[in-house]
């Protein structure tokens, strides 16, 4: 299935990428699954997305949990904890 993935703020700088359109297996059905898939790229991906890192995820612009489903056409954004205000 096709999804859109965004990397924001410090994560974009660490990964050297603002986002990408991905074709993934339907077996990757949750946010946690997508994270694991991206970490498997190794290097900066493994380090920046490692478990235990403070990381937030939004699915279709709503805050998401590791168990949140990922469906065709979704926009999934990875970013660090927010620091506005």
């Amino acid at each position, binding site marked *: 299935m096709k999804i859109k993935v965004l990397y924001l703020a410090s994560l974009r700088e660490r990964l050297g990428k603002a986002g990408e359109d991905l074709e993934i297996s339907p077996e990757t059905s949750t946010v946690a699954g997508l994270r694991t898939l991206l970490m498997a790229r190794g290097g900066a991906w493994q380090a920046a997305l490692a478990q235990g890192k403070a990381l937030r995820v*939004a699915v279709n612009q709503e805050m998401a949990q590791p168990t949140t489903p990922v469906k065709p056409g979704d926009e999934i*954004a990875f970013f660090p*904890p*927010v620091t*506005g205000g």
Partner: protein
Amino acid sequence: MAVRIQTEDFDAGAEMAALRRGNPKIGAVASFIGVCRDVNDGDIVTKMTLEHYPGMTEKALEKIVAEAKARWDVMEVLVVHRVGELKPADQIVLVAVAGAHRGEAFAACEFIMDYLKTRAPFWKKEETPQGARWVEARSSDDDAAERWNSPKADVA
């Protein structure tokens, strides 16, 4: 429009006058202005860049405003948040709440700021003499947002 993201500065007085204009039932306007400081974590800050997630930012703020309006009896709410390059002493954010009485207006204003700090997708990058760095989230901000979940939190 209750929520605005903009690069330009804002006039808090004019915004608050507009917020209560034409509504003589409003007896209280509470507000908060966040300002860019020239120091953070012991280092001099010369410049700050605010980034956000267009689309989600507006939705997240509108959700926070809706939750505040559901919890407290307030009439009008305005949130203006700047993005882009800011310098020390520049205004960053304005939250203004208008209602019949001060207690509800104060509480709603503080709630909106606490939730904005932990739920709205903004990120600050600051320039210091040691180089540029992303501002780290503070656990005290999480604590401030969390206290609104206690049973007594709605008492104004």
